[in-house]
Protein backbone atom coordinates (compact mmCIF):
# COMPACT_ATOMS: atom_id res chain seq x y z
CA UNK A 1 0.00 0.00 0.00
CA UNK A 2 2.86 2.35 0.78
CA UNK A 3 3.94 2.04 -2.86
CA UNK A 4 0.49 2.84 -4.14
CA UNK A 5 0.67 5.99 -2.05
CA UNK A 6 3.85 7.07 -3.82
CA UNK A 7 2.17 6.75 -7.22
CA UNK A 8 -0.86 8.62 -5.95
CA UNK A 9 1.47 11.39 -4.80
CA UNK A 10 3.03 11.62 -8.26
CA UNK A 11 -0.40 12.02 -9.82
CA UNK A 12 -1.36 14.51 -7.18
CA UNK A 13 1.74 16.64 -7.84
CA UNK A 14 1.04 16.52 -11.59
CA UNK A 15 -2.53 17.69 -10.94
CA UNK A 16 -1.28 20.64 -8.89
CA UNK A 17 1.02 21.64 -11.73
CA UNK A 18 -1.75 21.35 -14.30
CA UNK A 19 -4.00 23.27 -11.99
CA UNK A 20 -1.70 26.30 -12.01
CA UNK A 21 -1.01 25.90 -15.72
CA UNK A 22 -4.69 26.13 -16.51
CA UNK A 23 -4.92 29.44 -14.68
CA UNK A 24 -3.25 31.03 -17.69
CA UNK A 25 -6.65 31.75 -19.22
CA UNK A 26 -10.16 32.31 -17.84
CA UNK A 27 -11.55 29.68 -20.22
CA UNK A 28 -9.49 26.90 -18.65
CA UNK A 29 -9.35 28.27 -15.12
CA UNK A 30 -12.30 26.29 -13.83
CA UNK A 31 -10.63 23.07 -14.99
CA UNK A 32 -7.60 24.30 -13.06
CA UNK A 33 -9.52 24.60 -9.81
CA UNK A 34 -11.05 21.16 -10.25
CA UNK A 35 -7.64 19.61 -10.99
CA UNK A 36 -6.23 21.22 -7.85
CA UNK A 37 -9.10 19.98 -5.71
CA UNK A 38 -8.78 16.49 -7.13
CA UNK A 39 -5.04 16.52 -6.44
CA UNK A 40 -5.75 17.43 -2.84
CA UNK A 41 -8.36 14.71 -2.35
CA UNK A 42 -6.00 12.13 -3.85
CA UNK A 43 -3.17 13.28 -1.61
CA UNK A 44 -5.33 12.93 1.50
CA UNK A 45 -6.62 9.49 0.51
CA UNK A 46 -3.11 8.41 -0.41
CA UNK A 47 -1.86 9.47 2.99
CA UNK A 48 -4.50 7.40 4.76
CA UNK A 49 -3.85 4.37 2.58
CA UNK A 50 -0.09 4.41 2.93
CA UNK A 51 0.09 5.02 6.63
CA UNK A 52 3.26 3.44 7.99
CA UNK A 53 2.93 0.68 10.56
CA UNK A 54 4.32 0.88 14.07
CA UNK A 55 7.75 -0.14 12.78
CA UNK A 56 7.78 2.86 10.46
CA UNK A 57 7.50 0.83 7.28
CA UNK A 58 4.97 -1.41 5.56
CA UNK A 59 1.24 -1.34 5.83
CA UNK A 60 -0.15 0.20 8.96
CA UNK A 61 -3.18 1.78 10.45
CA UNK A 62 -4.04 5.35 11.19
CA UNK A 63 -4.37 5.91 14.92
CA UNK A 64 -6.37 8.51 16.78
CA UNK A 65 -9.22 8.49 14.29
CA UNK A 66 -11.53 10.53 16.54
CA UNK A 67 -9.05 13.41 16.61
CA UNK A 68 -8.55 13.37 12.88
CA UNK A 69 -12.20 13.05 11.97
CA UNK A 70 -13.26 15.77 14.38
CA UNK A 71 -10.65 18.10 12.92
CA UNK A 72 -11.82 17.38 9.37
CA UNK A 73 -15.42 18.00 10.33
CA UNK A 74 -14.67 21.27 12.09
CA UNK A 75 -12.48 22.44 9.23
CA UNK A 76 -15.20 21.70 6.70
CA UNK A 77 -17.94 23.27 8.76
CA UNK A 78 -15.91 26.43 9.14
CA UNK A 79 -14.58 26.46 5.58
CA UNK A 80 -17.79 26.15 3.58
CA UNK A 81 -19.53 29.25 4.95
CA UNK A 82 -16.33 31.28 4.62
CA UNK A 83 -16.24 30.39 0.93
CA UNK A 84 -19.85 31.25 0.22
CA UNK A 85 -20.59 34.16 2.54
CA UNK A 86 -17.39 36.14 2.02
CA UNK A 87 -18.15 39.14 -0.22
CA UNK A 88 -15.74 39.59 -3.12
CA UNK A 89 -14.61 42.94 -1.76
CA UNK A 90 -13.24 41.09 1.29
CA UNK A 91 -11.12 38.66 -0.71
CA UNK A 92 -7.83 40.28 0.38
CA UNK A 93 -8.72 39.79 4.05
CA UNK A 94 -9.76 36.18 3.48
CA UNK A 95 -6.50 35.50 1.68
CA UNK A 96 -4.54 36.94 4.61
CA UNK A 97 -6.55 34.79 7.03
CA UNK A 98 -5.91 31.63 5.09
CA UNK A 99 -2.18 32.37 4.94
CA UNK A 100 -2.33 32.61 8.71
CA UNK A 101 -4.07 29.23 8.98
CA UNK A 102 -1.68 27.53 6.59
CA UNK A 103 1.39 28.94 8.29
CA UNK A 104 0.08 28.02 11.74
CA UNK A 105 -0.47 24.44 10.62
CA UNK A 106 3.07 24.19 9.27
CA UNK A 107 4.50 25.65 12.47
CA UNK A 108 2.47 23.32 14.71
CA UNK A 109 3.40 20.23 12.71
CA UNK A 110 7.04 21.26 12.99
CA UNK A 111 6.68 21.76 16.74
CA UNK A 112 4.96 18.41 17.18
CA UNK A 113 7.65 16.64 15.16
CA UNK A 114 10.33 18.31 17.24
CA UNK A 115 8.98 16.97 20.52
CA UNK A 116 7.81 13.64 19.14
CA UNK A 117 11.21 12.82 17.73
CA UNK A 118 13.16 13.77 20.87
CA UNK A 119 13.54 10.15 22.07
CA UNK A 120 15.30 9.30 18.81
CA UNK A 121 16.96 12.67 18.40
CA UNK A 122 20.24 11.12 17.26
CA UNK A 123 18.80 9.59 14.10
CA UNK A 124 15.61 11.50 13.48
CA UNK A 125 16.76 15.03 14.21
CA UNK A 126 20.00 14.95 12.28
CA UNK A 127 21.48 18.28 11.28
CA UNK A 128 19.74 18.73 7.94
CA UNK A 129 16.37 17.73 9.35
CA UNK A 130 16.76 20.22 12.20
CA UNK A 131 17.73 22.97 9.77
CA UNK A 132 14.58 22.28 7.76
CA UNK A 133 12.56 22.06 10.94
CA UNK A 134 13.67 25.41 12.35
CA UNK A 135 13.09 27.08 8.99
CA UNK A 136 9.62 25.53 8.88
CA UNK A 137 8.69 26.73 12.37
CA UNK A 138 10.35 30.15 12.08
CA UNK A 139 8.59 30.98 8.82
CA UNK A 140 5.39 29.35 10.01
CA UNK A 141 5.08 31.28 13.25
CA UNK A 142 6.12 34.65 11.84
CA UNK A 143 3.80 34.27 8.86
CA UNK A 144 1.00 33.34 11.24
CA UNK A 145 1.11 36.57 13.28
CA UNK A 146 2.19 38.64 10.29
CA UNK A 147 -0.81 37.52 8.27
CA UNK A 148 -3.16 38.16 11.16
CA UNK A 149 -1.79 41.71 11.42
CA UNK A 150 -2.20 42.18 7.67
CA UNK A 151 -5.75 40.95 7.91
CA UNK A 152 -6.48 43.34 10.74
CA UNK A 153 -5.17 46.26 8.72
CA UNK A 154 -7.14 45.30 5.61
CA UNK A 155 -10.31 44.80 7.63
CA UNK A 156 -9.56 48.16 9.27
CA UNK A 157 -9.73 46.62 12.74
CA UNK A 158 -6.14 47.76 13.23
CA UNK A 159 -4.94 51.27 12.38
CA UNK A 160 -4.08 51.60 8.69
CA UNK A 161 -1.22 53.99 9.11
CA UNK A 162 2.29 52.66 9.72
CA UNK A 163 3.38 52.65 13.37
CA UNK A 164 6.98 53.75 13.61
CA UNK A 165 9.40 54.53 16.40
CA UNK A 166 13.06 55.36 16.72
CA UNK A 167 15.52 52.58 15.89
CA UNK A 168 12.70 50.36 14.74
CA UNK A 169 14.75 48.59 12.14
CA UNK A 170 17.55 48.05 14.65
CA UNK A 171 15.14 46.53 17.18
CA UNK A 172 13.65 44.26 14.55
CA UNK A 173 17.05 43.21 13.38
CA UNK A 174 18.21 42.44 16.91
CA UNK A 175 15.12 40.35 17.53
CA UNK A 176 15.63 38.45 14.33
CA UNK A 177 19.29 37.89 15.17
CA UNK A 178 18.35 36.36 18.53
CA UNK A 179 15.76 34.10 16.93
CA UNK A 180 18.26 33.03 14.28
CA UNK A 181 20.87 32.37 16.97
CA UNK A 182 18.47 30.12 18.86
CA UNK A 183 17.61 28.37 15.61
CA UNK A 184 21.26 27.62 14.94
CA UNK A 185 21.79 26.41 18.49
CA UNK A 186 18.75 24.10 18.18
CA UNK A 187 19.98 22.76 14.88
CA UNK A 188 23.27 21.82 16.49
CA UNK A 189 21.90 20.55 19.82
CA UNK A 190 18.34 19.43 19.11
CA UNK A 191 17.92 18.11 22.64
CA UNK A 192 17.89 21.62 24.17
CA UNK A 193 14.11 21.43 24.28
CA UNK A 194 13.73 24.36 26.70
CA UNK A 195 14.98 26.74 23.98
CA UNK A 196 12.19 25.82 21.61
CA UNK A 197 9.32 27.74 23.26
CA UNK A 198 11.52 30.88 23.44
CA UNK A 199 12.38 30.48 19.78
CA UNK A 200 8.70 30.05 18.85
CA UNK A 201 7.65 33.08 20.91
CA UNK A 202 10.31 35.25 19.26
CA UNK A 203 9.13 34.15 15.83
CA UNK A 204 5.54 35.04 16.71
CA UNK A 205 6.61 38.44 18.03
CA UNK A 206 8.78 39.11 15.04
CA UNK A 207 5.81 38.55 12.73
CA UNK A 208 3.92 41.33 14.52
CA UNK A 209 6.82 43.77 14.59
CA UNK A 210 7.55 43.19 10.94
CA UNK A 211 4.11 44.34 9.86
CA UNK A 212 3.30 47.28 12.14
CA UNK A 213 5.58 49.78 10.37
CA UNK A 214 3.97 49.01 7.02
CA UNK A 215 1.04 51.12 5.86
CA UNK A 216 -2.37 49.58 5.22
CA UNK A 217 -2.19 50.30 1.53
CA UNK A 218 0.98 48.25 1.23
CA UNK A 219 -0.75 45.21 2.68
CA UNK A 220 -1.39 43.59 -0.73
CA UNK A 221 2.33 43.37 -1.41
CA UNK A 222 2.91 42.13 2.12
CA UNK A 223 0.30 39.43 1.60
CA UNK A 224 2.05 38.22 -1.51
CA UNK A 225 5.34 38.04 0.37
CA UNK A 226 3.70 36.17 3.23
CA UNK A 227 2.20 33.84 0.63
CA UNK A 228 5.71 33.07 -0.44
CA UNK A 229 6.83 32.44 3.16
CA UNK A 230 3.89 30.12 3.80
CA UNK A 231 4.87 28.15 0.73
CA UNK A 232 8.49 27.91 1.79
CA UNK A 233 7.38 26.74 5.21
CA UNK A 234 5.37 23.89 3.64
CA UNK A 235 8.41 23.14 1.53
CA UNK A 236 10.62 22.90 4.61
CA UNK A 237 8.07 20.51 6.09
CA UNK A 238 8.56 18.40 2.99
CA UNK A 239 12.29 18.21 3.77
CA UNK A 240 11.57 17.21 7.39
CA UNK A 241 9.07 14.53 6.43
CA UNK A 242 11.00 13.53 3.32
CA UNK A 243 7.94 14.09 1.15
CA UNK A 244 8.42 15.28 -2.41
CA UNK A 245 4.77 16.15 -2.76
CA UNK A 246 5.07 18.73 -0.01
CA UNK A 247 8.28 20.09 -1.49
CA UNK A 248 6.65 20.55 -4.88
CA UNK A 249 3.41 22.11 -3.63
CA UNK A 250 5.36 24.40 -1.31
CA UNK A 251 7.73 25.47 -4.06
CA UNK A 252 4.81 26.25 -6.38
CA UNK A 253 3.21 28.38 -3.67
CA UNK A 254 6.51 30.06 -2.88
CA UNK A 255 7.22 31.01 -6.47
CA UNK A 256 3.68 32.25 -6.97
CA UNK A 257 3.98 34.63 -4.03
CA UNK A 258 7.37 35.79 -5.21
CA UNK A 259 6.21 36.56 -8.73
CA UNK A 260 3.05 38.34 -7.61
CA UNK A 261 5.00 40.56 -5.24
CA UNK A 262 7.51 41.37 -7.98
CA UNK A 263 4.64 42.28 -10.33
CA UNK A 264 3.11 44.55 -7.70
CA UNK A 265 6.38 46.25 -6.86
CA UNK A 266 7.03 46.87 -10.54
CA UNK A 267 3.55 48.27 -11.10
CA UNK A 268 4.20 50.68 -8.22
CA UNK A 269 7.77 51.38 -9.32
CA UNK A 270 9.09 50.48 -5.88
CA UNK A 271 11.56 48.01 -4.47
CA UNK A 272 11.00 45.20 -1.96
CA UNK A 273 13.04 46.95 0.69
CA UNK A 274 11.07 50.11 0.19
CA UNK A 275 7.81 48.27 0.81
CA UNK A 276 9.11 46.38 3.82
CA UNK A 277 11.06 49.14 5.55
CA UNK A 278 9.88 52.34 3.92
CA UNK A 279 6.87 53.27 6.07
CA UNK A 280 5.87 54.83 2.78
CA UNK A 281 2.28 55.95 3.35
CA UNK A 282 2.93 58.06 6.43
CA UNK A 283 5.80 60.14 5.20
CA UNK A 284 3.95 61.31 2.13
CA UNK A 285 0.65 62.06 3.83
CA UNK A 286 1.81 65.51 4.89
CA UNK A 287 3.03 66.74 1.51
CA UNK A 288 -0.52 66.68 0.18
CA UNK A 289 -1.34 70.29 0.99
CA UNK A 290 -0.65 72.69 -1.87
CA UNK A 291 -1.85 76.11 -2.92
CA UNK A 292 -5.53 76.52 -3.79
CA UNK A 293 -6.21 75.48 -7.38
CA UNK A 294 -9.44 75.61 -9.34
CA UNK A 295 -11.44 72.71 -10.67
CA UNK A 296 -14.85 72.19 -12.20
CA UNK A 297 -17.50 69.98 -10.68
CA UNK A 298 -20.75 68.75 -12.18
CA UNK A 299 -24.03 67.15 -11.18
CA UNK A 300 -25.25 63.70 -12.13
CA UNK A 301 -27.57 65.24 -14.69
CA UNK A 302 -24.77 67.08 -16.46
CA UNK A 303 -22.56 63.99 -16.31
CA UNK A 304 -25.32 61.87 -17.85
CA UNK A 305 -25.65 64.24 -20.76
CA UNK A 306 -21.92 64.09 -21.41
CA UNK A 307 -22.00 60.30 -21.35
CA UNK A 308 -24.93 60.20 -23.71
CA UNK A 309 -23.22 62.37 -26.25
CA UNK A 310 -20.18 60.12 -26.22
CA UNK A 311 -19.63 57.31 -28.66
CA UNK A 312 -16.80 55.67 -26.73
CA UNK A 313 -16.28 55.56 -22.97
CA UNK A 314 -13.47 54.02 -20.95
CA UNK A 315 -14.31 53.34 -17.30
CA UNK A 316 -11.37 53.30 -14.89
CA UNK A 317 -12.24 51.57 -11.60
CA UNK A 318 -10.11 51.98 -8.48
CA UNK A 319 -9.94 51.28 -4.79
CA UNK A 320 -12.89 53.59 -4.05
CA UNK A 321 -15.14 51.38 -6.13
CA UNK A 322 -14.30 48.41 -3.92
CA UNK A 323 -14.86 50.48 -0.78
CA UNK A 324 -18.26 51.61 -2.06
CA UNK A 325 -19.12 48.07 -3.29
CA UNK A 326 -20.30 49.74 -6.47
CA UNK A 327 -19.53 46.88 -8.90
CA UNK A 328 -23.15 45.88 -9.57
CA UNK A 329 -24.21 49.48 -10.16
CA UNK A 330 -21.37 49.85 -12.61
CA UNK A 331 -22.65 46.86 -14.46
CA UNK A 332 -26.03 48.61 -14.75
CA UNK A 333 -24.32 51.70 -16.07
CA UNK A 334 -22.42 49.57 -18.56
CA UNK A 335 -25.65 47.91 -19.73
CA UNK A 336 -27.47 51.16 -20.04
CA UNK A 337 -24.70 52.80 -22.07
CA UNK A 338 -24.17 49.76 -24.27
CA UNK A 339 -27.87 49.66 -25.02
CA UNK A 340 -27.57 53.24 -26.25
CA UNK A 341 -24.85 52.14 -28.67
CA UNK A 342 -21.97 53.60 -26.69
CA UNK A 343 -18.77 51.55 -26.87
CA UNK A 344 -17.75 50.92 -23.24
CA UNK A 345 -14.45 49.39 -22.13
CA UNK A 346 -12.73 49.11 -18.77
CA UNK A 347 -9.14 50.16 -18.19
CA UNK A 348 -7.62 48.01 -15.48
CA UNK A 349 -4.43 49.08 -13.72
CA UNK A 350 -2.45 46.19 -12.24
CA UNK A 351 -2.44 47.69 -8.73
CA UNK A 352 -5.84 49.33 -8.73
CA UNK A 353 -7.72 48.15 -5.66
CA UNK A 354 -6.14 46.25 -2.82
CA UNK A 355 -4.77 43.10 -4.43
CA UNK A 356 -3.32 42.30 -7.84
CA UNK A 357 -6.22 41.56 -10.16
CA UNK A 358 -8.72 42.73 -7.56
CA UNK A 359 -10.65 44.93 -9.99
CA UNK A 360 -10.96 42.05 -12.46
CA UNK A 361 -12.63 39.87 -9.86
CA UNK A 362 -15.04 42.63 -8.84
CA UNK A 363 -15.99 43.36 -12.44
CA UNK A 364 -16.35 39.65 -13.17
CA UNK A 365 -18.56 39.31 -10.12
CA UNK A 366 -20.85 41.90 -11.68
CA UNK A 367 -20.95 39.76 -14.86
CA UNK A 368 -18.98 42.16 -17.02
CA UNK A 369 -17.49 40.03 -19.83
CA UNK A 370 -13.76 39.68 -19.36
CA UNK A 371 -12.89 40.71 -22.90
CA UNK A 372 -14.06 44.19 -21.94
CA UNK A 373 -11.47 44.34 -19.14
CA UNK A 374 -8.40 45.72 -20.85
CA UNK A 375 -4.94 45.77 -19.30
CA UNK A 376 -3.08 49.02 -18.89
CA UNK A 377 -0.55 48.56 -21.67
CA UNK A 378 -3.24 47.74 -24.18
CA UNK A 379 -5.77 50.40 -23.31
CA UNK A 380 -3.34 53.28 -23.08
CA UNK A 381 -3.29 53.60 -26.86
CA UNK A 382 -7.06 54.02 -26.88
CA UNK A 383 -7.42 57.05 -24.59
CA UNK A 384 -6.62 59.70 -27.24
CA UNK A 385 -9.51 58.38 -29.40
CA UNK A 386 -11.89 58.06 -26.50
CA UNK A 387 -14.63 60.62 -25.84
CA UNK A 388 -15.03 60.19 -22.11
CA UNK A 389 -12.79 58.60 -19.50
CA UNK A 390 -14.91 57.91 -16.42
CA UNK A 391 -12.72 57.42 -13.36
CA UNK A 392 -14.57 55.76 -10.48
CA UNK A 393 -12.82 55.79 -7.11
CA UNK A 394 -9.35 55.60 -8.66
CA UNK A 395 -6.73 58.21 -7.94
CA UNK A 396 -3.01 57.41 -7.90
CA UNK A 397 -3.21 55.09 -10.88
CA UNK A 398 -4.35 58.05 -13.03
CA UNK A 399 -2.02 60.74 -11.70
CA UNK A 400 0.00 62.32 -14.56
CA UNK A 401 2.62 63.41 -12.00
CA UNK A 402 3.95 59.86 -12.25
CA UNK A 403 5.08 60.71 -15.77
CA UNK A 404 6.34 64.25 -15.27
CA UNK A 405 7.24 65.15 -11.69
CA UNK A 406 10.61 63.64 -10.76
CA UNK A 407 10.16 64.69 -7.14
CA UNK A 408 6.85 62.88 -6.72
CA UNK A 409 6.80 59.67 -4.69
CA UNK A 410 4.98 57.91 -7.50
CA UNK A 411 7.36 59.15 -10.20
CA UNK A 412 8.04 56.36 -12.69
CA UNK A 413 5.00 54.27 -11.77
CA UNK A 414 3.24 53.38 -15.03
CA UNK A 415 -0.24 54.93 -15.07
CA UNK A 416 -3.42 54.86 -17.13
CA UNK A 417 -3.23 57.79 -19.57
CA UNK A 418 -6.67 59.07 -18.60
CA UNK A 419 -5.59 62.68 -19.18
CA UNK A 420 -5.36 62.04 -22.93
CA UNK A 421 -9.11 61.41 -23.29
CA UNK A 422 -11.27 64.20 -24.76
CA UNK A 423 -13.27 64.60 -21.55
CA UNK A 424 -12.43 63.23 -18.11
CA UNK A 425 -14.97 62.68 -15.34
CA UNK A 426 -13.94 61.59 -11.85
CA UNK A 427 -16.30 60.16 -9.26
CA UNK A 428 -14.95 60.51 -5.70
CA UNK A 429 -16.17 61.92 -2.43
CA UNK A 430 -13.81 64.88 -2.00
CA UNK A 431 -10.61 66.46 -3.24
CA UNK A 432 -8.66 64.30 -0.74
CA UNK A 433 -5.61 62.52 -2.04
CA UNK A 434 -5.40 58.73 -2.53
CA UNK A 435 -2.99 56.26 -0.99
CA UNK A 436 0.20 58.06 -1.98
CA UNK A 437 -1.09 61.23 -0.32
CA UNK A 438 -0.37 63.56 -3.23
CA UNK A 439 -2.44 65.94 -5.28
CA UNK A 440 -3.69 64.69 -8.62
CA UNK A 441 -3.07 67.16 -11.47
CA UNK A 442 -5.74 65.40 -13.47
CA UNK A 443 -8.46 67.06 -11.37
CA UNK A 444 -7.37 70.58 -12.32
CA UNK A 445 -7.35 70.11 -16.07
CA UNK A 446 -9.80 72.13 -18.17
CA UNK A 447 -11.38 69.04 -19.60
CA UNK A 448 -11.97 67.39 -16.23
CA UNK A 449 -15.31 67.33 -14.42
CA UNK A 450 -15.30 66.29 -10.74
CA UNK A 451 -18.39 64.29 -9.74
CA UNK A 452 -18.53 64.37 -5.94
CA UNK A 453 -20.23 61.57 -4.07
CA UNK A 454 -20.00 57.99 -2.98
CA UNK A 455 -19.27 55.81 -6.00
CA UNK A 456 -22.32 53.60 -5.57
CA UNK A 457 -24.74 56.43 -4.89
CA UNK A 458 -23.46 58.61 -7.71
CA UNK A 459 -23.54 55.86 -10.30
CA UNK A 460 -27.14 55.06 -9.27
CA UNK A 461 -28.08 58.67 -9.93
CA UNK A 462 -26.33 58.58 -13.28
CA UNK A 463 -28.33 55.52 -14.26
CA UNK A 464 -31.55 57.22 -13.21
CA UNK A 465 -30.72 60.28 -15.32
CA UNK A 466 -29.94 58.30 -18.45
CA UNK A 467 -33.36 56.82 -19.38
CA UNK A 468 -35.09 60.03 -18.29
CA UNK A 469 -33.13 61.89 -20.91
CA UNK A 470 -33.99 59.41 -23.62
CA UNK A 471 -37.66 59.82 -22.88
CA UNK A 472 -37.35 63.59 -23.11
Amino acid sequence: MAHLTQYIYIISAALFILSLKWMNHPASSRRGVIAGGLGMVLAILGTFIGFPGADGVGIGFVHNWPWIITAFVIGTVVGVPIAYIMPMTAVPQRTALSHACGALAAALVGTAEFYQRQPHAETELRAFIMVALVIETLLGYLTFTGSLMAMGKLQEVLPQRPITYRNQNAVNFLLFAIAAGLAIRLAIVPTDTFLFPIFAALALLFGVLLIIPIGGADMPTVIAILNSYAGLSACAMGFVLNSRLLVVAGALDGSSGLILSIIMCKAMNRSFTNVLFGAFGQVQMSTGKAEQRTYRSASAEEAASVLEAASSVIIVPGYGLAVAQAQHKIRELYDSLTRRGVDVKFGIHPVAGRMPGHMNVLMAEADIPYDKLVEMDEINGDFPQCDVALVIGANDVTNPKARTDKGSPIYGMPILDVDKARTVMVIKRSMNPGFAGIDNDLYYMDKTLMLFGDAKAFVSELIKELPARVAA
Partner: protein
Amino acid sequence: MPTDLELELFVFMLATFLGLEIIRKVSPLLHTPLMSLTNAISAISVVGAILVTGAAGATFLSKVLGFIAITAVVTNIVSGFLITDRMVKMFKRREEKK
Protein backbone atom coordinates in the same frame (compact mmCIF):
# COMPACT_ATOMS: atom_id res chain seq x y z
CA MET B 1 23.94 6.81 -3.11
CA PRO B 2 22.31 10.17 -2.72
CA THR B 3 20.85 11.05 0.66
CA ASP B 4 17.30 12.22 1.26
CA LEU B 5 18.46 15.82 1.48
CA GLU B 6 20.12 15.63 -1.90
CA LEU B 7 17.02 14.11 -3.47
CA GLU B 8 14.72 16.71 -1.98
CA LEU B 9 17.01 19.55 -3.05
CA PHE B 10 16.89 18.24 -6.57
CA VAL B 11 13.11 18.14 -6.51
CA PHE B 12 12.99 21.59 -4.94
CA MET B 13 15.17 23.03 -7.68
CA LEU B 14 12.98 21.56 -10.41
CA ALA B 15 9.72 22.59 -8.76
CA THR B 16 10.89 26.15 -8.23
CA PHE B 17 11.91 26.57 -11.85
CA LEU B 18 8.62 25.06 -12.92
CA GLY B 19 6.63 27.26 -10.57
CA LEU B 20 8.33 30.40 -11.83
CA GLU B 21 7.71 29.46 -15.46
CA ILE B 22 4.08 28.57 -14.96
CA ILE B 23 3.08 31.44 -12.70
CA ARG B 24 4.67 33.98 -14.99
CA LYS B 25 2.20 32.91 -17.67
CA VAL B 26 -0.91 33.25 -15.53
CA SER B 27 -3.25 35.86 -16.97
CA PRO B 28 -3.22 39.11 -14.95
CA LEU B 29 -7.01 38.86 -15.04
CA LEU B 30 -6.70 35.92 -12.67
CA HIS B 31 -4.09 37.08 -10.18
CA THR B 32 -6.56 37.21 -7.32
CA PRO B 33 -7.95 33.68 -7.87
CA LEU B 34 -4.38 32.51 -8.42
CA MET B 35 -3.43 33.66 -4.96
CA SER B 36 -6.27 31.80 -3.33
CA LEU B 37 -5.61 28.72 -5.44
CA THR B 38 -1.92 28.47 -4.56
CA ASN B 39 -2.90 29.04 -0.99
CA ALA B 40 -5.32 26.12 -1.14
CA ILE B 41 -2.64 23.97 -2.74
CA SER B 42 -0.09 24.81 -0.08
CA ALA B 43 -2.60 23.36 2.39
CA ILE B 44 -1.02 20.09 1.26
CA SER B 45 0.66 20.34 4.65
CA VAL B 46 -2.47 18.45 5.68
CA VAL B 47 -0.38 15.38 4.81
CA GLY B 48 2.14 16.28 7.51
CA ALA B 49 -0.63 17.08 9.96
CA ILE B 50 -2.28 13.70 9.43
CA LEU B 51 1.03 11.89 9.81
CA VAL B 52 1.70 13.66 13.11
CA THR B 53 -1.76 13.13 14.56
CA GLY B 54 -2.30 9.58 13.38
CA ALA B 55 1.12 8.16 14.23
CA ALA B 56 1.09 5.07 16.45
CA GLY B 57 3.15 6.64 19.21
CA ALA B 58 1.71 10.15 19.05
CA THR B 59 2.03 11.94 22.39
CA PHE B 60 -0.82 14.01 23.76
CA LEU B 61 1.01 17.17 22.70
CA SER B 62 1.36 15.84 19.15
CA LYS B 63 -2.31 14.99 19.05
CA VAL B 64 -3.38 18.44 20.23
CA LEU B 65 -1.04 20.33 17.89
CA GLY B 66 -1.90 18.00 15.02
CA PHE B 67 -5.59 18.46 15.70
CA ILE B 68 -5.30 22.24 15.49
CA ALA B 69 -3.16 21.94 12.39
CA ILE B 70 -5.63 19.66 10.61
CA THR B 71 -8.52 21.95 11.50
CA ALA B 72 -6.65 24.98 10.18
CA VAL B 73 -5.59 23.44 6.88
CA VAL B 74 -8.87 21.68 6.19
CA THR B 75 -10.53 25.07 6.58
CA ASN B 76 -8.05 26.36 4.01
CA ILE B 77 -8.62 23.49 1.64
CA VAL B 78 -12.39 23.72 1.77
CA SER B 79 -12.71 27.48 1.66
CA GLY B 80 -9.75 27.91 -0.71
CA PHE B 81 -10.95 25.66 -3.49
CA LEU B 82 -14.59 26.69 -3.13
CA ILE B 83 -13.93 30.42 -3.16
CA THR B 84 -11.51 30.12 -6.07
CA ASP B 85 -14.13 28.20 -7.94
CA ARG B 86 -16.67 30.88 -7.12
CA MET B 87 -14.31 33.51 -8.48
CA VAL B 88 -13.33 31.83 -11.73
CA LYS B 89 -16.94 30.98 -12.47
CA MET B 90 -17.59 34.70 -12.58
CA PHE B 91 -15.28 35.24 -15.53
CA LYS B 92 -17.40 35.00 -18.65
CA ARG B 93 -16.57 36.09 -22.13
CA ARG B 94 -20.01 36.80 -23.57
CA GLU B 95 -22.93 37.72 -21.43
CA GLU B 96 -25.26 34.79 -21.11
CA LYS B 97 -28.39 36.28 -19.70
CA LYS B 98 -30.25 38.91 -21.64
